[in-house]
C-alpha cells in the first residue's frame, strides 16, 4: 500500500499502539487486559505497519525477528515456574515479593506477572510469524 497517509499514520501510531498494549498488559491483573490481549495489540500495531510498508520494513522496525519474541516469551513463561521449586513449593506456585520503588511506591511483583509477560511475548511473536509469513507469499 503506497499511500503516504496510511504510511504516516502507521509509523506515528506504532509507538502509541505499543504503549497501549503495555498498559493493557500491566493493568491486566486487576482490570480487563493481560498478556494475551496485550500481545494481540502489539502484533496488530506491527501488522498495520507491515500493511502500510512491507514485512521487511516491519521486521526492521521490530529490530528482532518474531522468532526471538517467541523464544523470549516461552522461556520467560517456563522460567517463571521454577522459583516455586526453590521455595519448596509445588511446581508453578505463584511466588510474590513486595518491592518498594522510589517515586512509584510499593508494588507487588510475582512469578504470575513474569508468566503473563511470557504469554505477552509469545502471542505477539506467534501472530507476527504467521501473518508476516503469509504476507510474504
Amino acid at each position, binding site marked *: 500500500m503506497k499511500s503516504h497517509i496510511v504510511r504516516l499514520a502507521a509509523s506515528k501510531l506504532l509507538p502509541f499502539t505499543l504503549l497501549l498494549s503495555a498498559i493493557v498488559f500491566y493493568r491486566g491483573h486487576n482490570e480487563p487486559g493481560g498478556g494475551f490481549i496485550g500481545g494481540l495489540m502489539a502484533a496488530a500495531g506491527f501488522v498495520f505497519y507491515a500493511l502500510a510498508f512491507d514485512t521487511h520494513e516491519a521486521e526492521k522496525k521490530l529490530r528482532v525477528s518474531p522468532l526471538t519474541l517467541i523464544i523470549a516469551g516461552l522461556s520467560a513463561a517456563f522460567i517463571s515456574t521454577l522459583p516455586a521449586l526453590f521455595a519448596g513449593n509445588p511446581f508453578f506456585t505463584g511466588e510474590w515479593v513486595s518491592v518498594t520503588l522510589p517515586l512509584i511506591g510499593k508494588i507487588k511483583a510475582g512469578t504470575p506477572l513474569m508468566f503473563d509477560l511470557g504469554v505477552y511475548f509469545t502471542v505477539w*511473536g506467534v501472530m507476527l510469524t504467521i501473518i508476516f509469513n503469509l504476507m510474504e507469499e
Partner: protein
Amino acid sequence: MQGILSYLILLLITAFLAPVIINRAGKAASWLLGSVSVAGFFYLLRFAAATARGNTLSMTLEWLPQLHLNFTLYLDGLSLFFALLVTGMGAMVLVFAGKYMQPYPQKDRFFLLILLFEFAMLALVLSGNLFTLFIFWELTSVSSFLLVGFSHEKPEARNAALQALLITVAGGLAMMAGFIMLGQIAGTLEINELLKSGELVRSHPHYSPALILILAGAFTKSAQFPFHFWLPGAMQAPSPVSAYLHSATMVKAGIYLLMRLSPVMGGTPEWKYILTITGAITMILGGYFAYSQTDFKKVLAYTTISALGILVLMLGIDTNISIKAAVIFMLVHALYKGALFMIAGLIDKSAGTRDLRKLGGLFHVMPEASVAAVISLLSMAGLPPMIGFIGKELIYEAKIGLPEIGNWLMVAGVLTNVIMVAISFALIFHLFGGKLRYAGRVPTRPAFALWIGPAILAGTSLLIGLFPSRVANLLLRPAITFIRPSIDTLSLALWHGFNEVLLMSLATIGAGITLYLLYRKVNPVLTNFNNEVITFRFANAFNRTMDLFLKLTKKKTSLIQSGYQRYYLMAIFIMTSVLAWYQIFYTWQGNGINTGPVPAIFELLIAALIVSAAVVAVAVKSRVLAILSMGAAGYGIGMLFLIYGAIDVAITMLLAETLVLVLFMVVVFHLPKFTNFSGRGSRIRDAVIAIFTGSFMTGLVLKAGQMDPAGRVSAFYTENALPLAHGKNVVNVILVDFRALDTLGEITVLVIAAIGVAALLKLKSKKGSAA
C-alpha cells in the same frame, strides 16, 4: 546414604567430564577414570560390615508421593553385592578400555557412554523404589544401545544396537505395567515396604498378570529364551562393552530384579514353573550354540546366555540351597566371564582375529594373559580350586534336592556343565597351549593395561576359591539373607566330603574331557549344521516382524492421513457434534428450556446482524465480501460478550477477529479468481455438516441453561482471586495463576502452530524457487 547419593552424582559429573579428561590427560586418563570407580568400590565396601549385621540404609526424596513416585535409594546386603560388582568391574574395564580403545575414533565419547552406563547401573541396584529402578533400567538400555552401535559406520553394529534396544525396551515397557499393577496391589512401590507385603501380593487375583509382565522385563534384559538372540548380536560392541555390560552387569539386571522381588512374588507355582522352564531351555540352548561357534567372542556370548539360564533356573527352583547357589554363581560368572571377554578383546588386538580355528599356542606371546585365561576357564569348567567349583557343586546340590521336577532337569544341568568343561578345555589347549599358530600378522605382546584387569579378576577367582569363608560372611551371606531371611549361615568349602554331588562332578569332568577330545571333529560338523540345516534365525525372524509392522503402520497412516484439509475438518466437526449430541440427548432434563431474561431490543438487533452476516457470507459470490461479512458476524459476537460483562473475552474476540480479517485479506489477493470449486453434491454435504455442527452448539447452550454452572467452581475463583493470587481480574488470574499450566500448554501449541505455518510456507517458496 547422603554419601552414596553424592558418589552417584560424582559419577555422573565424571561421565560428562570424561571426554575432556580423555582428550587432555593422555595416557593417564583411563587410570584416572578407573580410580573414580575404585574409590566407589572401597567407599561402598565400608558399608559391608553394617549390611552383614542385617542393617539397611535408605533415603527418600519425594517426587510425586500421590502416585507412590519417589526417588529412593536403598542399600542392603543384596544391593551392596551388586553395587560392588558394578564399581569393581567398572574399574577393571575402564583401565582395559583406556588401552583397547586407543585407535578408535571418538573414544572420548565412548568413555562418556560407559561411565554413564556405570552410573545408571549403580543407581539401578541402589534404587529403593520400583520407579526409580525403572528409570535407571531404561537408562542402561539406552546406554547399551549407544555402546553396541558405537562403531556406527558399520550397518551390522547399527542393526544389532537397534535390535537390542527394541527388545529390552519392549520388555521394559511391559515391566513398567507390571510395576504399576504391583503398586496397585500393595499400595506402595517402595522396596522395603513391598518386602513386607509378600502374602498380600501373592494371594491377589492380579498376581499372575503382574508377574508375567515383570518377568517380560527381566527375561528380555537377561537374554532368556526366546529373547536371547539380541545378546550375540550385541557382540558388535567393542570388547570392553561386552565384558562390562553384556556379561558382568547389565544382563544381570534382570537377575537382580528377580532376586529383589523373590521375597515378594516368588515361591508360587507360576513363579517356579515359568522360571525353571525358561531357565532350563536358555541354559541348554546357550550351551549347544557355544559349543558350535568358532569366534571366541561368540562362544563367550552363548556361554553367557547359558549362565543366565542357570541363574534363572536356580531362582525358579527356589529352595534355600538354590538361592545360595544363584548368588554365588552370580559372583563366579562375573569374575570369570568379565576376565574372558577382556582376554578375547586382547587377543583380537594382538593377533588381529578371534577365530579359534586359526589361533593356537598364544601362551608363548602372552604368558600373563594366558595364565589369567586358564584360571578363568577352569573356574568356568567348575574345577577345583576355583570358586567356580564351589558354585557348580551348589548348583548340583540344588537340583538333587528337587524330586518333584524330576530327572530331566538334572540331565539338562549335567549336560550343560559337560559342554562347559569341553569348551573350557578346548579353549585352554587349542588357544593357549601347543605350538604358536596365527593368521595374517604375528601376535604381539599385549600391554600391561590390557592384561592387568583379567589378571586381577582371575586372581580373585582363585583366592575366593581357596579362602571362601571371609567373602561368604561379608558379602554373600548378607546378600542371600535379604533374598531369603530364613538363611542365616553360609559355609563354603572346596571339600564337601565324598557324596553324590562329588560323584556327579567327577562324571561331568570325565564326559567333558571326552567331548573336548571330539571338539575338533564335532565343531565343524555342528557349525555346518547350524548354518545350513537350522535356517530359522531368531534375529532374522525379529527383523522380518519389524519390517511387517512398519509396512502396516505406513498403510494405516496413508489411510487416515488423506492430506486434504477439508476431510480433516469434516472429521473433526462430525465427531465432535456426534459425541456432544449423544451426551446432550441422554442427559436432557425434561423440565423445559431456561432462556434467561427477555433480551433487550439492541441485543436482538445484534443477533439479527450476526445471522444476516452469516447468511451473506455463505450466499455471496465475492470472496472479499464473504470475508468481510464473516468479520461482521465475529464483531457482533464480540459485542454480545461485552454486553454480558465478559470484557476480557470481548476484547480478545475483537482483536483476534481483526487480525484474522487482515490475514484472510492478505491471502485472498494470492488466490485465483472465484471459481466454482465445489459441485452441488458437496455443497449439500457441507451444508448438512454445518447445520449439524451449528445445532450442536445451540443444543450445548440450551443444555448449559439447565445446569448451575455458577456453583462450585466460579465461586471459588471469585472468592480466592484476591487473597490467593493478589489479582482483582478473575479471568486473568485464572489464566496466569490458577490454570497457568493450561495456559503454558496453550501458548506452546500456538508456537508449534506458528512454526508449522512458517515451515510450510518456507518449504513451498523454496520449491517454487527451485522449479
